């Protein structure tokens, strides 16, 4: 096992990795930018080292700065967290060239899975169904039009590199395709430095289901169940849960087993996530693999009791998995709420500034992974994730109830968060029925969601006074929210 690990990330994930290192008795050095000098991870670390200015390109995205920091602090491994350089094969290569271990898949594995398009075809060869799409990268507009015709509209234009919805457009006609290609190319070029695009058949009402896997150096692989990340806004996940309400137990088992078989055969190593789209009929299609720890990994940890970051460290250190598939037990239901500093009432405008007061919720089955503290100043330079509230219950209804209570308890004064928006989701009948598709929030509109929840609350109070039963309250809330949401959806 490693002696000392450099944590090359910030926010809640830096803290999460720090905690895992502590548990395993590994020394942890936190690398930080000038804007994160007062962060909780820096305060709690055994040692912290400033690697550059606030601008991420010169700190968290600077391979020389990070590797040099690991060298001068005598670390033997680097944990990249998620985002930034976490899936950058050339960074992994530089890390190794300096005699250090990259905590994640080895560089050559990252390289093998670097191209989304290439990975789809690779895993298709190992038995995973993929969405019909273009043959290779789009050469030019004429090629794109030809391929779209063959696949059939609507199609989704996707960049080969990156993620997060950048450079991605759904088009319904040749004319739309023609206009969107240029925009996507320039977006992809700006965001990832690579403008290669491909097409995929657009599945209208899809659900996003992903399988968590872990594979050691010796080719032993397990899956740790799946997660449903269908609650999205503009291709950004905001709430995740497991197990997915979209599939039966047998279908989930089938999906997970096929996923882990395929990645083991394709030579994957370390923890990773395979993302699938599930259509209305329950058919699933592989879309991409994430070669890193994911934001939503705690959902799986709640279900399995397995520490995924510790597992990541062990695999990277060359240890065998030490768990068989039979020992992985999935219990109950978990939901994660991404608590973002954003104003849902004003187009989710990101917020920055001091946190005047902060209070974490608690109780059975409640976990909060957050780097906040009272007096902390959220810097304006990075993403708006303040933390992740994760709740667990023996069943989905209990998890939802605990989520509602915890969201109400969570106190972040000084900044506007999306906690109320999460409560609105919990009150939505589509969510309560487990029928949320990835396009729902964008189709209905965030405003309608909030309004529905607000009127639901009013009605619930009236109704509760009249009937006095919990059953009546829930029905009233669901009814009111449903009317609004469905009405907006028809527009």
């Amino acid at each position, binding site marked *: 096992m490693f002696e000392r690990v450099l944590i090359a990330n910030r926010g809640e994930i830096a803290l999460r990795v720090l905690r895992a290192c502590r548990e395993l008795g590994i020394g942890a050095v936190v690398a930080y930018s*000038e804007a994160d000098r007062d962060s909780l991870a820096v305060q709690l670390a055994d040692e912290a080292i400033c690697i550059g200015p606030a601008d991420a390109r010169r700190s968290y995205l600077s391979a020389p700065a990070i590797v040099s920091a690991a060298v001068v602090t005598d670390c033997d491994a680097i944990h990249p967290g998620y985002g930034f350089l976490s899936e950058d094969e050339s960074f992994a290569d530089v890390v190794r060239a300096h005699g250090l271990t990259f905590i994640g898949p080895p560089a050559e594995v990252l390289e093998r899975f670097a191209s989304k398009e290439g990975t789809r075809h690779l895993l298709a060869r190992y038995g995973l169904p993929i969405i019909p799409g273009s043959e290779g990268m789009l050469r030019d507009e004429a090629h794109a039009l030809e391929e779209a015709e063959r696949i059939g509209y609507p199609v989704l234009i996707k960049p080969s590199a990156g993620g997060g919805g950048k450079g991605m457009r759904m088009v319904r006609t040749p004319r739309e395709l023609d206009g969107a290609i240029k925009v996507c190319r320039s977006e992809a070029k700006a965001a990832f430095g690579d403008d290669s695009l491909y097409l995929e058949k657009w599945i209208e009402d899809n659900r996003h289901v992903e399988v968590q896997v872990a594979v050691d150096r010796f080719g032993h692989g397990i899956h740790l169940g799946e997660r449903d990340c269908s609650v999205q806004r503009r291709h950004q996940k905001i709430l995740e849960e497991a197990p997915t309400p979209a599939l039966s137990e047998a279908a989930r088992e089938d999906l997970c087993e096929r996923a882990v078989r395929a990645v083991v055969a394709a030579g994957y190593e370390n923890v990773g996530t395979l993302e699938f789209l599930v259509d209305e009929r329950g058919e699933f299609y592989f879309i991409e693999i994430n070669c890193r720890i994911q934001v939503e990994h705690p959902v799986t940890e709640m279900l399995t009791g397995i520490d995924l970051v510790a597992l990541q460290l062990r695999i990277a250190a060359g240890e065998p998995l030490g768990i068989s598939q039979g020992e992985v037990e999935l219990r109950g239901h978990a939901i994660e709420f991404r608590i973002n500093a954003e104003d849902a009432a004003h187009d989710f405008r990101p917020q920055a500034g001091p946190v005047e007061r902060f209070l974490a919720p608690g109780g059975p089955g409640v976990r909060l992974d957050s780097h906040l503290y009272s007096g902390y100043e959220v810097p304006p330079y990075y993403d708006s994730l303040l933390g992740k509230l994760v709740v667990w219950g023996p069943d989905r209804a209990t998890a939802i109830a605990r989520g509602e209570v915890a969201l109400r308890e969570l106190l972040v004064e000084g900044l506007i968060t999306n906690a109320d928006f999460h409560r609105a989701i919990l009150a939505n009948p589509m969510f309560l029925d487990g029928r949320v598709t990835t396009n729902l929030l964008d189709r209905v509109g965030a405003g309608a969601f909030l309004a529905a929840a607000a009127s639901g609350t009013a009605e619930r109070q009236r109704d509760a006074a009249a009937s006095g039963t919990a059953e009546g309250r829930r029905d009233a809330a669901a009814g009111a929210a449903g009317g609004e949401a469905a009405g907006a959806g028809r527009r």
Partner: protein
Amino acid sequence: MTDDLLERPMLQADPLGRLAAPDPAADHGAITRLADDLLPALIAKLTASGLGELEVRQAGWRIRLRMPAGRSTERGGGERRGGSHGRAQPGHAGHGHAPAAVEAGHRDGRGLLAVGPGRPDVDGDGAGERASTERAERHRVVTSPAVGFYEPRRDVTSGRRVHEGDRLGTVDVLGIRQDVLAPVDGIVGASLVEPGEPVEYGQELLNLELLGEPTAVGAAAPSEAPPTPVEPAGTEAAGVEVEVAAPPPPALDGQTVDSTAQAGPA
């Protein structure tokens, strides 16, 4: 990696490592001195003094610094974005691009505090408070441009006169040496890091004693610029005239206009 150093106007250091003098030609020397030498010292003075406004005239130039209302007694280090809190105002428009350079230097987010390039006080950390107090009036701390191992130049010893842009040492980043450059003209003072020691980004490496520091605020007095090898034309023996305008009423609260009046660092 050295692009932070490229933002500033730099003087030539010759490749043999001899410490070069600034180009004595034209106004540029004076302007550079004004922008990079005098101004940071004045800013520190203003921040520390609790004054509302400060104006300096020198060699045909005039600089006025103003604290926004209610800011003059706040601690200097607590500012997140210092750039908008006052800026140099060239008095004469006739000098073309030069005054713009003075302004631009303080609009690029480096803020209004006298600190090295590696430690912009716009981030509001504790080090800034230190820098904004008396020490910063006479010293400028040279900070590390990168994470690595520090190696000072052997011939840059205490008491040595250096010019802005001179290489004072290097930081070895994975075998690639990055230059540590003098942010201003000055005299090398105490070294804060041993040769070969690991340093982090922004770490304080050595002190530079400033040349041509302004004297007491409020008492118009000539500056006593130490003898320099080549004095830029037009600034020689130029007196520094400091005008103190009326401070904003809520901030002063009976404080005397005195260079010893300091906003006490926490």
